């Protein structure tokens, strides 16, 4: 069984103090605990600071386009359903450029774990507002402040009855790692929105800010109750719940395809007899 060292140790291009470091550490711990071997895992990312993460791990990697990690991950999962597929990217990548794919991934309930490093800012491009940036937040691109209301991904995912919806905070590494573990184990779409301080460009939602607000959901919290989850998901102003907000047992996407019952697409051979019959149908 793979141990944490098998997942590698790389120098990163992140700022000292960035929340990403803890997310990487937590993810590594979760992967080691999952019982999966590195080669059984595929991490698909977009572009951004968060999206660099898979380069710092020993796993299969598809580091695609900004905003497009979910479609690529979906294609890979449908092609080889044996792979454990994780999509990992920033808030801009997933809720900005990739907003439409976020909705579709939830609708499909594709069995992918989505890790969003949510620093409420565009980090790599130097600090423009992201969809999760708070209203009135001032940046160089928004010198008059952000005028749109912040996107609450957890709220939307719950509203759409996503299979697994969690929020975590990079500052609680152990808790985060546990949640990632559960997300990876979930058979269906799992969103883990991870609050992540960006020390360079988000001077409002800092480590201390998050740390003060975040509280872990109590043990008796029932994530299968949608009505309660809707309310929990909307908490943000005073206190921010972290943990598994909602979950259900919707059938994962690939299990709808009878063609996948006897193995992944990547293992199929072209049936020449079937093809001949199809051709004859045009006669």
């Amino acid at each position, binding site marked *: 069984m793979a141990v944490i060292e098998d997942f590698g140790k790389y120098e990163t*291009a992140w700022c000292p103090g960035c929340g990403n470091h803890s997310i990487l550490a937590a993810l590594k711990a979760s992967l080691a605990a999952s019982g999966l071997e590195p080669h059984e895992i*595929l991490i698909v990312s977009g572009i951004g600071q968060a999206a660099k993460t898979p380069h710092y791990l020993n796993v299969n990697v598809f580091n695609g386009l900004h905003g497009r990690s979910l479609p*690529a991950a979906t294609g890979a999962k449908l092609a080889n359903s044996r792979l454990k597929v994780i999509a990992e990217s920033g808030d801009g990548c997933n809720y900005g450029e990739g907003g439409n794919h976020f909705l579709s991934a939830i609708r499909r309930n594709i069995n992918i774990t989505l890790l969003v490093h949510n620093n409420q800012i565009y980090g790599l491009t130097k600090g423009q507002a992201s969809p999760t940036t708070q209203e009135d937040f001032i940046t160089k691109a928004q010198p008059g402040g952000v005028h749109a209301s912040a996107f609450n991904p957890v709220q939307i995912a719950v509203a759409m009855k996503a299979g697994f919806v969690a929020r975590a905070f990079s500052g609680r590494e152990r808790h985060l790692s546990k949640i990632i573990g559960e997300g990876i184990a979930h058979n269906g779409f799992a969103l883990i929105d991870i609050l992540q301080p960006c020390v360079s460009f988000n001077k409002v939602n800092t480590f201390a800010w998050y740390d003060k607000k975040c509280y872990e959901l109590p043990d008796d919290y029932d994530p299968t109750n949608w009505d309660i989850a809707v309310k929990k998901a909307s908490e943000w102003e005073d206190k921010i719940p972290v943990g598994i907000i909602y979950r259900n047992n919707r059938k994962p996407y690939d299990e709808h395809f009878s063609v*996948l019952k006897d193995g992944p*697409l990547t293992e*199929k051979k072209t049936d020449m007899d079937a093809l001949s019959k199809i051709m004859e149908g045009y*006669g």
Partner: protein
Amino acid sequence: MERDELNIMIGGAAGQGLDTIGQILSKSLVREGYFIAVTQRYLSRIRGGHNTFTIRASANEVNASKEQIDILIALNEETINIHRNELASGSVVLLDKALKIEEKDFLSIPLKELTAKKYYNIAALGIVCSIIGLDIHTVESTLDYFFGKKNEDDAKENLKALASSYEWALKNSQDNYKLKRIDRPVQRLMMNGNEAIALGAMSSGLRFASFYPMSPSTSIMINLAANAEKMGMIVEQAEDEISAINMALGASFAGAPAMVSTSGGGFALMIEGVSLSAMTETPIVIALAQRPGPATGLPTGTEQGDLNLALYAGHGEFPRAIFCPGSIEECFYLTRKAFEQAEKNQGPVFILTDQYLADSYRAVDPFDIESLPPVTAGESKMDGSLYERYAITPGGISPRLLPGMSKGLVIADSDEHNAIGHITEDPYLRVQMVNKRLKKAEGIKNDVIAPERLGDEDPEILLVSWGSTRGAVIEAISMIKALNHTAGGLHFSQVWPIIPEQFEGILEGAGEVICVEGNATGQFAGLLRKETGFSVHKKLLRYDGLPITPEFIMRKSGLINQS
């Protein structure tokens, strides 16, 4: 009088069932051994408007559609008004007696007496089949084939309507529209371009296809979807075209040979993905079915206006191959070639088609499927040690491992990367990687399909063409020759790369070189000049949304009078 060939047009509003008449008539003709060339014109609406389905039927092989109509089946009055000028001498118009239009050479059919309104289209079918002398049993079994699984009562009524109208026509029509009978009909398939592309893709080992609906490409995917279960594929409708191509790339990366299909505007949205395919070196086949632009343009028309876009789509620089079938057979075989090239060179490959070819039914000989091996994704397996996804090799192609298939970890990256696949910003590595990717162009060139030479050598008139115009050009060459000129053709079924040495002599040896294209600016003529320095002498361009016909070439070239 027996005819070698007839051009039959069915015209009416969407929803009047003209597609059904057209399909059954075409298939019956093919089953009786005739060759056909179908042109479909329809508008961007579901009911109403004016559509046509035109079948050129012939005892001999045909390459293109024809303009002059021998039999016009007018499902409404508008059809007559619009197409009166296209009637050949000695033609006949079939129409409902209720329309109360009486003219010489018009055959008024008492549809109301023959059947109920619901079956008018079948009755019209019966009349035309009778007039051209098709065996009613063939038509009946074709009808069965089309409606077989549906409502039994309906099926019966259909057959009744067919029989009564067939009978009526035997008694009430003239005898000079009979097609020459084919004695021992060869068994052929009736297939349009999109069906042949789908079949080609399946025979290539396609496993994953994704798309967002867009005319005229959608039916490629509909055809694949119908067979997904049987062939072990997934055909996924994506939330948008961006998702479609990124899904396909994800699937391809994981080891499923993959394709997308789309048209101009949808393709525009895929362009970033084309570049991703090149950078990550992930195979993908892109079927780009052209329609007139810009923007939404004429959604149901035809055009060859996206050649430049296919040539240069994608930011940054990388090689590609672009195939442009000129026949149904080529739709099949070039789709196969596209998959081969995509997997071999690990990057984007195009099939550039258009509405005309997509919808044009023909009679084709069955393909020799058995002898054609499907592609395989990934060439090698390795264990343990470090795998270099982007290993530098002489030909630029790195051995391809698939993720999860062995212990070797596969790392694909859209940033510039080192051999392993990790991000680099090193100028030296950058140059190495650019060179590596561009080197693949050599391999692609080695496999290029040379342009097809048609007609006379060193002719007075040389028609240069590409893609779907092939048939029209072939027939135009015959027509020009019939006017006592020497005439030839140079037809490209692959527009990129092109290798000047393969054809420069032909251009130089011709008297007048005329480029025939379905666009307004002569895009292929521009490419020719760019690659060879040669300027064609004349361009025959069509961009009204209609296909290029032999007659159009003749008119525009000034070789026959404008009609």
